[in-house]
């Protein structure tokens, strides 16, 4: 019990004193996950719009697959990306394995299905007359998409925030693709795994508290966004 209490005390000291290693890991984690979420949004939002507002053969199947991929294990995504970017893989020449860029790619692929699904759900709440109104006002296809996204902006923001939450909290793909290289690809989750296995509990707890803090901030922002969408 004392070990845990000591661990917490030391962890808080590490955070309060802005321990360089802790801060460096936290900043890298944010950089990788924010970039992955941003890039995933660029794909998921238009894709969700297209899937929802266009009729095509197999649309229901596509949506079912997307929904199934919500719960895809992160290690499976890690394995898929590993096969893709390893030296013998089709994208091996890009040299992405064990780099932050590779981790960004893995996190993107991890969160895109969930974001597409949530964006489709957001668009399905748009009244058909709203879509017709925007078209009748002389909107081009792109203008129509932007105007409709503005209509459901809170739900879309919520989808992006939830995507970020999934990206920052995953460990499987980050470990497999990043390799947990100190000072290069080590992020909060992989670091916690490693430090715990090494018995360095204060550092693990400090990193865990930061991750928890980020989760708390995400939840607060999400609540504010959802509150605004209701008013």
């Amino acid at each position: 019990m004392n070990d845990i209490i000591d661990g917490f005390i030391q962890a808080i000291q590490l955070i309060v004193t802005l321990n360089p290693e802790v801060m460096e890991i936290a900043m890298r984690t944010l950089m990788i996950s924010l970039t992955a979420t941003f890039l995933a949004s660029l794909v998921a939002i238009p894709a969700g719009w297209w899937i929802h507002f266009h009729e095509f053969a197999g649309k229901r199947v596509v949506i079912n697959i997307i929904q199934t991929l919500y719960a895809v294990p992160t290690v499976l995504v890690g394995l898929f990306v590993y096969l893709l970017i390893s030296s013998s893989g089709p994208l091996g020449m890009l040299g992405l394995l064990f780099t932050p860029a590779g981790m960004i790619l893995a996190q993107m692929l991890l969160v895109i299905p969930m974001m597409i699904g949530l964006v489709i759900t957001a668009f399905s709440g748009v009244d058909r007359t709203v879509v017709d109104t925007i078209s009748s006002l002389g909107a081009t296809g792109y203008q129509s998409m932007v105007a409709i996204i503005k209509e459901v902006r809170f739900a879309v923001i919520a989808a992006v925030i939830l995507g970020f939450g999934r990206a920052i909290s995953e460990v499987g793909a980050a470990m497999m693709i990043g390799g947990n290289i100190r000072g290069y690809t080590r992020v909060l989750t992989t670091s916690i795994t490693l430090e715990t296995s090494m018995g360095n509990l204060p550092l693990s707890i400090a990193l865990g508290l930061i991750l928890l803090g980020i989760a708390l901030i995400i939840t607060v922002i999400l609540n504010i966004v959802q509150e605004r969408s209701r008013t």
Partner: protein
Amino acid sequence: MIEISGLYRKVGDRMLVNDVNLTIPDGMIFGIIGPSGSGKTTLMRMIDLLDNSTMGSITINGTRATRDKKQQLELRRKMGMVFQKPIVLSTTVFENVSYGLRFRGVKGDELKARVIEAIDLVGLSGYEDRYAPTLSGGEMQRVAIARSMVTRPEVLLLDEPTANLDPASTQKIEELIGTINARFGTTIIMSTHDLDQGQHIAHRIAVVIGGMITQAGTPEEVFHKPLNSEIAKFVGLENIIGGTVTKTEEGLATILTHGKEVEAVSTEGVGSQVFISIHPDDITLHSGLGIEKSKSSARNCIIGTVTVTTLSGPFVLVTLDCGFPLKVIVTRRSVEDIGIQPGKEMQACFKASAVHVMKS
């Protein structure tokens, strides 16, 4: 001018729009009336090029619409459409009204001036910064009209614009429609199932039943000279009775209906199956059964028994059983003077010119 020729729209097995042919001149208020589900909204959406036709053509100011998206957008930008359900986007009134201009690349001072002008047109000055979804239904519909008018459309399509509104809001919208047409010369195509509205706002009216234009003409023609019994029933004509022409003489036809002979001004030939309608206002009631036709200017006098009397504002609607139900509108004074009451035998008289004859 809008020219619609041989227009069809079929969805699955249902023919929503069936061989519609219309010409709507510039500057006209054109009413499209018809029962719910008759195809009015589909026709309006097709004119705004939101729905494609299965067959036929729509020509807007000389340009025939094609399936080309770019051309459709160009044509749609000459029009504005307001939908039955008051729809505002989740932003301020100003931003709502500015959408169409922003889509067309209008910015800065011009955008601001035109938006303010449009908001003023619909009588919502001072509402610019209000969050539009918090407005009343009538105010939302006026925002929708301002949003369509801000782009100065050549054609304004109004799909049952007052269907969900209270009487006060309906009146404001109706006045606004007249103002827009008079001030800007905008061609207005308005669908409605409110017959009074269609009658007093529109210059010309088309009746849509089952996806087809069953009659088009002035409100006078449509409401007083319907082409068939279905239109007559829809426009609210009373006393629609079926019969057969048995004799014709000098423009007068004698029609046998339920064992009674009715004379009417008609060119229908002997043997024709027809429907007649007589407006309840055009029938007079007499208590003396011995009235001779020659003593009355009315060529038709039919005996019947009063079955029901119903108050209708300052008037009384009297229903007679003449072998068929015949409705007559009389004043309350007449009811007292003649002693109209259920069970009493009365004579209903009307002129031959008051009988409207329709093909069966």
